[in-house]
C-alpha cells in the first residue's frame, strides 16, 4: 500500500513539473509580480516527493517484501534504525533522496530569494526543473524503488552489514545535501548569466547557498572517512579510492568557488571564473553519482550496479553540460578588462594563486580517477591508480600552497607590501627548528618530511596568532584556515609516526617482538538479534611495561551471511590504539592487526573546525 502511494506520488510529482513550467513561462513573459501559484506548485511537488519517500521508509519499516527494493536490501531481524537507514543505503532509495533534496532546495530558494529579481527567480526555478524532471524520469524509468515482486517473498536478502553502522546511516543524506545543494548554485548561476544579473548583490545572495552546500559536503566526507577508519578495519582514513575521489573533486571546486565569490562580492571580478566553477561543481557532483552508480569505476568499494542506469545519467549529464556551455558562450558578456587592476602582491593575486593550486589538485585527481576508464575502453587493459600517484603529484605542491595560505590573508586588497611583517620570517624560523627537532629522531626521509612539517607548522602558527591579534574580526576564515593547518599537521604526523603489527595467532598464543607483546587470551561468543559475535580478549604490553586490554569483535551476520570486523579502538588526545581481528573460514588462526596511530582524533577535530568556520560565516551573514 505504502509503495503504491509512493509510486503514484512520483508520477503526480512529475506531472506537477508541467504546471510549474507553464505558469513560470506565463509569469516570465508578463510584467506582473512573482506569481505565488508557482511557489505553491513547487511546494506541492516537494510534498509529493516527501510522501513518496515516506512511503518507501514505511515499506522498509513494515518489511514489505512485495517491494523489490525492500526485498533486496532489508530483513525482518534487522534493527529498526537500520531498516530506516536502509531506505537510502541502496541505489533506488538514494536516488529518491537526491530528488527529495533537489525539490527541497529549490523550494527553500524560492522562499528565501523574495528580494531578488522576478525573472531571475523564475529562470532559476526553470533550470532546476530541468534537473528535477531528468531525475524523475530516471527514477521512474530505470530505477524505481517501488517495483512489485509476485509472489511476495517471505524474507528479504538483508542489508550489507558494513552499511549497518550509525556513521554510514547518516553519511548519504549529509553528503547528498552537499552534492545536490550545488544544483541550486548551478541553476541560479545559469539564470543570472542569461539575464546578465551577476552583481555584487547576487554574489552576496548566492554565497549563503555555496556555504551551505560546502558545509554539508565537508561533513559528509568526514563521516565517510570516519566510517572507513573504524568499520573497514584498515585503520586509514583516506585511500584515494575512486569513490572517495569523486566526493573530493566537487569539494575542491566548491572550495575554490567559495574563495572566488568573495572577490566577486567585493570587487565584481572573475565573473566568468565563478560561472565556470559553479557549472564544474554541479557537473562533478553528478558525475560522482554516475561513476559510483554505473559501475564503470574499478573501485574497492564496488557496489552492485546496472550499466543502463549509467548510460542514462551519462546522456543527461552531457545535455546539462551542453546547455550550460551554450548559455555561458552566448549570454555571458566578457568582463571589462580595466577592472583587473591589482598589484602582484595583493589579496586578489593570492586568491588567484589559491585557485591555480586547487585546479591543479582537481586535475590530478580527475585524471587519476578517469584515466583507468579511458584506458579500459580504448585498449581493454585493466589498471588502477593508487596512492603513490597522488602522493607524488600532490604532496610537493602542498608546500607552496600552505605558505601561500599563511601569507595570502595577511595581504591587502589591490596592492600590498611586506613592511611590518617581520613576524612572518620569525615564525618561519621557529617552524623550521621545531620540524627539524621532531623529524631528526626518526629514521625517515628527512628533507621532504621536514619541509612539509615546516610548512604545516608555519600555517599553524600564523593562523593561531590571528586569534589573538585580530580579535575575532574574521573568525570564520581564521577558524577554517587554522583547522586546515591542524588537519595537515595531524595527517603528516600521523603518517610519520604510525606503526603496526600484523600477525596470525591462535587462541592462547603470544606474539613477541622487541617493542611489543600481544597476548591472545581467549574468545567469547554471543548471540545478538541479527548476528553472532565472537569477541577476542587481548592483552597488549608495550616496551614501557604499560598493559592494555583489547576486545575486538567479529560479527557473523545471518542475512546476508557476511562476516565483519569491529575494530576495538582506544582513543586519547595523543594517540589511537587500534586492533582488528579476522577469521578465515575453516582455519584456527585469527588474523590480528594492531596499529598505533598518533593524532588520529585531531584529524576529525580539525575537519570539524573547518566546518565550524563555514557555519559561523552563515550566521554572520544572517545577522547582517
Amino acid at each position, binding site marked *: 500500500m505504502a509503495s503504491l502511494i509512493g509510486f503514484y506520488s512520483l508520477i503526480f510529482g512529475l506531472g506537477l513539473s508541467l504546471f510549474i513550467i507553464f505558469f513560470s513561462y506565463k509569469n516570465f513573459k508578463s510584467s506582473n509580480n512573482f506569481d505565488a501559484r508557482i511557489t505553491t506548485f513547487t511546494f506541492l511537488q516537494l510534498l509529493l516527493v516527501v510522501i513518496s519517500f515516506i512511503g518507501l521508509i514505511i515499506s522498509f519499516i513494515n518489511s514489505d517484501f512485495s517491494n523489490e527494493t525492500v526485498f533486496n536490501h532489508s530483513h525482518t531481524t534487522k534493527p529498526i534504525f537500520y531498516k530506516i537507514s536502509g531506505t537510502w543505503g541502496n541505489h533506488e532509495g538514494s536516488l529518491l533522496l537526491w530528488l527529495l533534496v533537489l525539490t527541497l532546495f529549490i523550494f527553500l530558494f524560492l522562499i528565501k530569494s523574495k528580494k531578488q529579481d522576478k525573472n531571475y527567480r523564475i529562470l532559476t526555478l526553470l533550470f532546476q526543473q530541468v534537473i528535477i524532471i531528468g531525475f524523475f524520469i530516471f527514477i521512474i524509468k530505470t530505477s524505481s524503488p517501488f517495483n512489485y515482486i509476485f509472489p511476495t517473498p517471505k524474507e528479504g536478502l538483508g542489508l*550489507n552489514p*558494513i552499511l549497518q553502522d550509525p556513521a554510514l546511516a547518516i553519511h548519504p543524506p549529509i553528503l547528498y545535501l552537499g552534492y545536490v545543494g550545488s544544483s541550486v548554485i548551478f541553476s541560479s548561476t545559469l539564470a543570472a548569466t542569461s539575464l546578465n544579473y551577476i552583481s555584487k548583490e547576487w554574489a552576496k545572495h548566492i554565497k549563503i547557498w555555496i556555504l551551505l552546500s560546502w558545509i554539508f559536503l565537508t561533513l559528509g566526507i568526514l563521516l565517510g572517512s570516519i566510517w572507513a577508519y573504524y568499520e573497514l578495519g584498515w585503520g586509514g582514513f583516506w585511500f584515494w579510492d575512486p569513490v572517495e575521489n569523486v566526493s573530493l573533486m566537487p569539494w575542491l571546486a566548491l572550495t575554490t568557488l567559495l574563495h572566488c565569490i568573495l572577490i566577486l562580492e567585493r570587487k565584481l571580478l572573475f565573473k566568468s571564473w565563478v560561472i565556470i566553477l559553479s557549472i564544474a561543481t554541479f557537473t562533478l557532483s553528478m558525475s560522482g553519482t554516475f561513476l559510483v552508480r554505473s559501475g564503470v569505476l574499478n573501485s*574497492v568499494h564496488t557496489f*552492485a550496479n546496472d550499466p543502463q542506469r549509467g548510460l542514462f545519467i551519462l546522456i543527461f549529464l552531457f545535455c546539462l553540460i551542453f546547455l550550460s556551455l551554450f548559455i555561458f558562450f552566448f549570454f555571458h558578456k566578457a568582463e571589462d578588462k580595466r577592472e583587473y587592476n591589482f598589484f602582484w602582491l595583493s589579496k586578489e593575486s593570492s586568491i588567484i594563486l589559491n585557485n591555480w593550486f586547487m585546479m591543479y589538485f582537481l586535475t590530478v585527481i580527475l585524471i587519476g580517477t578517469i584515466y583507468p576508464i579511458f584506458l579500459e575502453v580504448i585498449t581493454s587493459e585493466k589498471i588502477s591508480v*593508487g596512492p603513490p600517484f597522488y602522493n607524488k603529484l600532490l604532496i610537493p605542491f602542498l608546500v607552496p600552497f600552505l605558505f601561500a595560505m599563511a601569507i595570502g590573508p595577511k595581504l591587502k586588497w589591490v596592492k600590498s607590501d611586506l613592511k611590518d611583517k617581520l613576524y612572518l620570517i620569525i615564525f618561519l624560523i621557529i617552524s623550521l627548528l621545531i620540524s627539524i627537532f621532531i623529524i631528526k629522531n626518526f629514521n625517515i626521509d628527512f628533507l621532504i618530511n621536514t619541509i612539509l612539517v615546516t610548512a604545516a607548522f608555519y600555517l599553524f602558527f600564523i593562523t593561531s596568532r590571528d586569534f589573538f591579534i585580530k580579535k575575532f574580526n574574521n573568525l570564520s576564515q581564521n577558524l577554517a584556515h587554522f583547522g586546515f593547518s591542524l588537519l595537515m599537521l595531524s595527517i603528516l604526523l600521523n603518517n610519520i609516526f604510525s606503526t603496526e603489527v*600484523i600477525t596470525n595467532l591462535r587462541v592462547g598464543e603470544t606474539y613477541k617482538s622487541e617493542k611489543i607483546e600481544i597476548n591472545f587470551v581467549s574468545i567469547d561468543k554471543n548471540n545478538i538479534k541479527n548476528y553472532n559475535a565472537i569477541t577476542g580478549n587481548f592483552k597488549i604490553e608495550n616496551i614501557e611495561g604499560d598493559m592494555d586490554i583489547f576486545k575486538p569483535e567479529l560479527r557473523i551476520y545471518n542475512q546476508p551471511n557476511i562476516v565483519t570486523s569491529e575494530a576495538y579502538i582506544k582513543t586519547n588526545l595523543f594517540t589511537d590504539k587500534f586492533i582488528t581481528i579476522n577469521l578465515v573460514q575453516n582455519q*584456527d588462526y585469527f588474523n590480528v592487526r594492531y596499529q598505533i596511530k598518533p593524532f588520529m582524533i585531531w584529524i576529525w577535530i580539525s575537519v570539524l573546525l573547518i566546518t565550524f568556520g563555514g557555519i559561523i560565516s552563515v550566521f554572520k551573514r544572517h545577522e547582517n
Partner: protein
Amino acid sequence: MYGRKVKLRFIFLLLALIILSLSTFLIIKSLEENVVYFQSPTKIKTLPEIEKKKIRIGGMVKKESILVKEEEVKFIVTDYKNEINVIYSGVIPNLFAEGKGVVAEGFLKDRNLFLATKILAKHDENYMPPEIKKALEEK
C-alpha cells in the same frame, strides 16, 4: 616599444604555459610509473616475460585452498581455466573466503606463484572481478 602592461601580460602568459606543460608532463610521467595493471590467471600464463612491476590479479579463491600459518596465508586464485598460487602476509579482509571473488596486489615470482602485498576488500559480497563474470557467463 610595447608598454609595460603588454610585457607583463606576455610574461604571465608564458609562465602559465610553462607551468601548464610542466604539470601535464609530470602527471603523465607519474601515471606511467604508478599504474597497476590487472591480470587474470589465464593472462599470466601467456605473459611473454615476468616483469618486476607491481600488478593486481583477480579471480575466485579456489575451494579448500586456503591455508593459514603464523606468518603467512597461502591460497589459489582461479578463473576456472587456469590457477595461480598466492602467498600473502598482511591484513585479510572480511569478505575473503573460499569460493568468493578476490583481488590481490603484489609481484609475480613466476607464472605459478604470486607474492601478494595487499588483498583488497570489496563492499559487496556478490562482487566478482568482471573477467570472472564473463568467464562464468560463457560457460
